[in-house]
């Protein structure tokens, strides 16, 4: 009954005309940014973050969340029509969906993709609503030692889930942690690494850093792509969008399974929508009787990829809201927004500001309904938007980034910091160093340091306090397993390959 009462409270907030408008804006912007290869949800969130300071925090987070899960719908559009995934989470969609387009079933693929995302969104929100309060209750039992251990666990998960470039991921996290130490020490107010510059006393301006990394660096790295306008030759008519009834029958079970799997993978920091989509695809392939048609335009494969990545986008928000630990790069950027709005995400948010939390949950239900309708009925419009050349988009984003960054503090210093992070973001992209771990380090660094130091301050056991407290000891043990296990597995595989006498197949 509590759940229904809370949802009713949430709908009361979310169904205001203003908030419905913000859901719509977030959904449209997210879909467009998701559809464009090279643009992403973190870029869109970073770009719109300065505008949210004039908004009520509930409206602001509703819009930003709409961008995030909207982008998972949008990334299927270019994946299906062009075979170019909007981001890495849509690779599976590109494999199966574009094959369906080549077979003349592009409209069906788009509708199936949108329906899969919708199903995963609704299931994800329901699990979120049910699991959020218990997780927050559990989080209230955390002391400083447990919080420090959980944040360390989040950092350890990042390289554990990486399929390659683990060292680069570690470098990104550590760089973020180091940048987070710039400014006044929280306990002693001693300036650290400020080079006597007053604008650094409050630390690296978060909005400027995020906009620089994702807006300037990421966008300019992709400037060499040029336009994709000429590649869009497929015209999809509205009447070609709906598959026949018999096509839907085998898709129900994969949709449900992949949605749930995607959600729980998304909860894990560092796992993300990409891993969720591949894991769901692998699961459906393993279950299917006829595996040979996967990769040839198999609708179940398309469903798995889309439901997986959309479920993960909702799942990533659960630890952010309930524990204050973001589950992905986009939620890390959103978390920064929380701190700027003066909100402290975590277990007490459910009690202190239930309208905010349940308003967000209710808005995600509304947003998913809107996105299903938009992505089915407005495909011709989104296809037209995709024809905008990148040479027009890139400078537009640069100008909006500069204006947004300046508007935060009316400071030119912030704009130059944005450009410095833009150059850093470009360099990191060049070296294939992921940006999300750096943002995670930058956002969680201050919290990690304060919990760590307070835990050591309170206890007279020093570092032993982390292992004598059962909860933090368990969390640290899990973190240690995540660090050691990939190394052991890699060593075992290398040894097995070296000693296996079986010749490689021709």
């Amino acid at each position, binding site marked *: 009954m509590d759940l229904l009462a809370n949802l009713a409270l949430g709908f009361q907030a979310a169904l205001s005309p203003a908030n419905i408008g913000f859901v719509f804006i977030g959904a449209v912007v997210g879909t467009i940014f998701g559809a464009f290869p090279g643009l992403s949800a973190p870029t869109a969130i970073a770009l719109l973050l300065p505008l949210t300071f004039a908004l009520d925090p509930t409206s602001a987070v509703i819009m930003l969340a709409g961008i995030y899960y909207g982008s998972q719908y949008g990334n299927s559009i270019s994946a299906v029509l062009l075979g170019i995934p909007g981001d890495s989470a849509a690779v599976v969609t590109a494999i199966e969906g574009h094959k369906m387009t080549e077979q003349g079933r592009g409209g069906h693929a788009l509708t199936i993709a949108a329906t899969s995302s919708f199903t995963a969104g609704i299931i994800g929100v329901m699990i979120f609503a049910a699991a959020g309060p218990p997780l927050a209750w559990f989080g209230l039992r955390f002391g400083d030692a447990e919080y420090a251990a959980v944040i360390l666990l989040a950092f350890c998960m990042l390289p554990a889930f990486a399929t390659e470039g683990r060292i680069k991921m570690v*470098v990104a996290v550590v760089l973020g942690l180091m940048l987070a130490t710039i400014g006044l020490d929280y306990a002693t107010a001693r300036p650290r690494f400020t080079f006597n510059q007053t604008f650094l006393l409050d630390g690296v301006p978060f909005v400027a850093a995020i906009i620089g990394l994702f807006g300037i660096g990421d966008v300019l790295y992709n400037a*060499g792509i040029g336009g994709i306008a000429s590649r869009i030759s497929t015209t999809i008519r509205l009447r070609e969008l709906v598959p026949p009834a018999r096509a839907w029958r085998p898709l129900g079970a994969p949709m449900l399974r992949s949605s749930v799997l995607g959600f729980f993978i998304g909860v894990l920091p560092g796992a993300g929508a990409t891993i969720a989509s591949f894991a769901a695809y692998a699961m459906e392939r393993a279950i299917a009787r006829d595996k040979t048609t996967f990769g040839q335009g198999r609708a179940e494969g398309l469903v798995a990829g889309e439901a997986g990545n959309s479920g993960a986008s909702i799942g990533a928000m659960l630890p952010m809201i309930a524990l204050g630990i973001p589950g992905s790069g986009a939620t890390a950027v959103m978390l920064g927004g929380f701190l700027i709005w003066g909100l402290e995400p975590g277990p007490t948010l459910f009690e202190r500001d239930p309208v905010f939390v349940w308003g967000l949950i209710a808005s995600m239900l509304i947003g998913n309904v809107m996105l299903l309708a938009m992505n089915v009925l407005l495909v011709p419009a989104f296809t037209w938007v995709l024809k905008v050349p990148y040479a027009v988009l890139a400078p537009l984003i640069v100008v909006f980034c500069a204006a947004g960054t300046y508007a935060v503090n009316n400071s030119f210093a912030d704009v130059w910091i944005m450009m410095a992070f833009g150059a850093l973001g470009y360099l990191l992209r060049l070296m294939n*160093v992921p940006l999300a771990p750096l943002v995670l380090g930058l956002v969680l660094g201050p919290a990690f*340091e304060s919990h760590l130091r307070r835990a050591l301050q309170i206890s007279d056991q020093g570092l032993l306090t982390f292992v004598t407290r059962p909860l933090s000891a368990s969390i640290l043990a899990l973190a240690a397993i995540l660090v050691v296990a990939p190394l052991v597995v890699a060593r075992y595989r290398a040894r097995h390959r070296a000693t296996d006498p079986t010749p490689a197949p021709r």
Partner: protein
Amino acid sequence: MGSVRTGLITCLFGALLVPLGLAVTFESIELGYIRYGVPAAGFFPFWAGLALAISGALLVLVSWRERRARHDLDWPVQLTWLAAAFVFVLATHWLGLLLSGFVFLVLTIRVLGGLPVWVGLLTATLACGLLWLVFEVWLLVPLPPGLFESL
């Protein structure tokens, strides 16, 4: 289309991180590691700097094997865009954001994008108009006026 030895760049970046991390570590000792039995201001940067130096060294080791590999990348175009963005920000100090943004949009769309002038003019007019409406009218945030400050 150019090509870039990204492995070599990664090696150099890793090599730069080592002295940077060590500098942070030594600086944090001066800030104070432990004071009166509790972690001081330099405690966390000490470990962060050490971790950065170690991970930088590992990055050099891992990317050394790929230092000769070349990847196709249109880096002249990318660096030109990056340089143009820097010039735009510099020009904002004197011309103000709206005027420098207008010029930046027209020039980059025409020269770097190779699109017709009218596309640049239309995009710049709509974009600067939208910026003015959103920031100056709606959010009441004054954008840098530059030359027009005295008017």
